[in-house]
């Protein structure tokens, strides 16, 4: 990264322009994807194939992440709970945190690192090895064939995985509660279903996860297609894509936390 | 003097997850001062052979010997001593992107010997002049054209004046004029210094005239080892086809 003579202000300005242009390009890509979605003009067999592949490839990390992070929520809450002697509230506390925030957020970060990054690498490799040009030469629309199925595949994978990881994280939390502060599974379960957690908390998490899926899908497809410069270029794209996804996830999380009840 | 005796190299095939023979039963001898042309179709194991000689890949069976040192069983220190005598230009150039051209060329010299700064500057300038890139000292590799990178890689391989020179496609992607100049340069320098050189190239028209002997490697096996004339008259149909570049045949 050349520091040379560019002043600090200049660099900030250049950064803002860069970001604006990337967002603009992503919006254009989104427009072209939507244009091919209504009516659905994309390869549905490809969608199913990607869905299966993405689910299988992300399953192990989602399981590990969910179990451990559920347990960590309890570990962090345990001292507070013990301080107030409110063991019965542990299920509620962990459930609230997992369903509204931790579950969707960590699952999205993991899927972004696994599925999103992989997708960028795939598309990027196809671009630098001129496979995408090859498709065009055969009059096959790369967006219909390559991009749109992946785009919806990622959104669906992330939404489904969030449901799955919510359940696993609660299970991990219950296990940790039993092991660390001796709260029975039953007590934990009562804490979750005791009425303090409402359906809207679950919905809050799921709506967010769909939005995260959207940003991961869009940025991973965009950076994949925008790859140039051989093998190092693919590496750069993957990096840019995961960074954009993570930034986007946090920004969306912020706005949705306020907007969605 | 290089001696390979029924050398076998097995590498992990990452896609299938098992280990696969890449070289089998290679037996050749390259005397000192010889330019040995190694040719063969793609994925035959030519690069693997060069890397094995440089001690970069493990020897599975047989013997790879350079001036009496067994590369496969050399200890780390022995290998380091051996590598002072090896110069290698890689197929992908392997120029360090974050170092300037002159730092790249000087890298083996500084790592393997203890030269003074003046010596380094002098030698780098001489090398750059020999590959007709004078004044490129401070450029960075990503800003060079494909042909320029190839020539810088050659300059780096020869900076230590190694007795053994391993060149993997040193002229791929070069225009005919530059390519011919590079082959002439190789021949001139190798003959002047009495070094041994193993040269991999698919540019047979330019390669064969400068070679003393030639080996044809197909699918990990040495099909032919001998002089260029013998190769051109070979009774093995595959060797004959490859050396003459015929489209029809067993390959």
């Amino acid at each position: 990264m050349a520091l040379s003579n560019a002043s600090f202000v200049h660099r900030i300005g250049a950064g803002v322009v860069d970001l604006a242009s990337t967002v603009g390009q992503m919006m254009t890509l989104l427009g072209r994807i939507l244009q091919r979605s209504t009516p659905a003009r994309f390869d549905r067999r490809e969608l199913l194939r990607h869905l299966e592949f993405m689910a299988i490839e992300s399953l192990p990390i989602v399981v590990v992440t969910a179990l451990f992070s559920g347990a960590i929520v309890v570990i962090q809450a345990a001292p507070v709970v013990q301080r107030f002697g409110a063991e019965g509230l542990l299920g509620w506390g962990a459930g609230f945190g997992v369903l509204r925030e931790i579950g969707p957020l960590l699952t999205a970060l993991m899927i972004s690192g696994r599925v999103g990054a992989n997708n960028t690498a795939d598309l990027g490799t196809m671009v630098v090895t001129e496979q995408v040009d090859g498709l065009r030469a055969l009059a096959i629309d790369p967006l219909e064939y390559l991009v749109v199925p992946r785009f919806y595949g990622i959104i669906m994978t992330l939404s489904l995985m969030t449901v799955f990881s919510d359940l696993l994280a609660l299970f991990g939390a219950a296990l940790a509660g039993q092991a660390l502060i001796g709260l029975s599974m039953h007590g934990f379960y009562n804490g979750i279903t005791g009425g303090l957690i409402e359906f809207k908390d679950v919905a809050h998490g799921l709506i967010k996860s769909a939005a995260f899926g959207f940003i991961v899908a869009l940025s991973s497809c965009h950076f994949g297609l925008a790859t140039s410069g051989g093998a190092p270029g693919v590496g750069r794209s993957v990096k840019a894509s995961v960074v954009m996804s993570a930034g986007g996830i946090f920004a969306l999380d912020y706005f949705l936390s306020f907007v969605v009840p | 003097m290089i001696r390979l005796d029924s050398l076998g190299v097995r590498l992990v095939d990452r896609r299938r997850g098992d280990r696969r023979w890449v070289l089998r039963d290679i037996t050749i001898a390259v005397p000192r001062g010889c330019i040995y042309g190694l040719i063969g179709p793609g994925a035959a194991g030519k690069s693997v052979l060069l890397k094995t000689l440089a001690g970069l890949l493990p020897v599975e069976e047989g013997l790879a010997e350079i001036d009496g040192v067994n590369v496969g069983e050399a200890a780390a220190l022995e290998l380091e001593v051996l590598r002072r005598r090896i110069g290698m230009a890689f197929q992908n150039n392997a120029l360090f992107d974050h170092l300037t051209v002159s730092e790249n060329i000087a890298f083996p010299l500084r790592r393997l010997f203890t030269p003074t700064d003046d010596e380094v500057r002098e030698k780098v300038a001489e090398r750059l002049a020999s590959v007709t890139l004078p004044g490129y000292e401070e450029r960075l590799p990503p800003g060079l054209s494909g042909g320029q990178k190839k020539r810088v890689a050659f300059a780096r391989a020869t900076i230590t004046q190694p007795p053994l020179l391993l060149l993997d496609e040193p002229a791929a992607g070069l225009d005919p004029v530059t390519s011919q100049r590079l082959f002439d340069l190789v021949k001139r320098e190798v003959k002047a210094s009495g070094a041994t050189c193993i040269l991999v190239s698919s540019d047979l028209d330019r390669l064969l005239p400068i070679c003393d002997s030639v080996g044809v490697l197909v699918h990990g096996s040495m099909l032919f080892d001998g002089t260029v004339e013998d190769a051109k008259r070979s009774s093995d149909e595959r060797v004959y086809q490859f050396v003459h570049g015929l489209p029809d045949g067993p390959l």
Partner: protein
Amino acid sequence: METPPPLTTHESMLVKLGRLVIDGTEGARALTSLFLRTLWFTFKGSRPKGSTAHQAFEIGNNSASFLALTMGFIGMILVYQSAVQLGRLVPDYSMVGANYGELLVRELGPTIGALMLATRVGAGMAAEIASMVVTEQVDALRLCAADPVDFLVVPRFLASLVMTLVVVVLSSAVAYATGAITAFIAFDVRFDVFANLSLVDFGDVATGLTKSIAYGAAIPICSCHCGLEAHGGSAGVGRATTAAVVLSSLAIIVLNFFISAGSFLVGL
């Protein structure tokens, strides 16, 4: 070379599971070996001077603003979410700041910060090293008696150890500030009430520090491992970069669990 007979779905699932276990143990062994070699070369290496400082600058320069941004958002979200949660029980927000401060030092600052670092810095390290592997630069290093672990991994490892802590502290400060602003705007908690650090004790600081150091070591080891294992052209670089993000993130989550559980059990 005979091709194996096609597998039935059952067999292939079993094979996949088996391969997962084998890959897992082999991966753990390779990571340990890389870690030990890194430590060895930290004291014994002959890398050029200044390479660690260069990497430290790269890490800070690349990640500070990104971490400040994401942690800033996290601060706002978490204060908002926990205040909403608290509001359903007792609408008394005076302790929100104190609890948030403890959680930030002990858990959120190091862990979320490190997850972001893994994304930003880990991916970068893996991409860089993987490109060097597939373009044979690592072979060229070895040919010149320059061990790739010494030249490539050690500077990144040392730089990351230091810079993770620095960047985590900086971005946690940002998260604390945005949290305070959110509490003030959304729940009318005054700054002097929010800035209550009475719950942050030695145990919290020690746990947070341990985590930062552990993550700072884990990210470069995982990422460099993935980079060095790269093979097969541009597709290989992509795969290595992906694997680095996943492996580093998993390492952080697993380490977090063990350090948290450990510090809870010893009563810190």
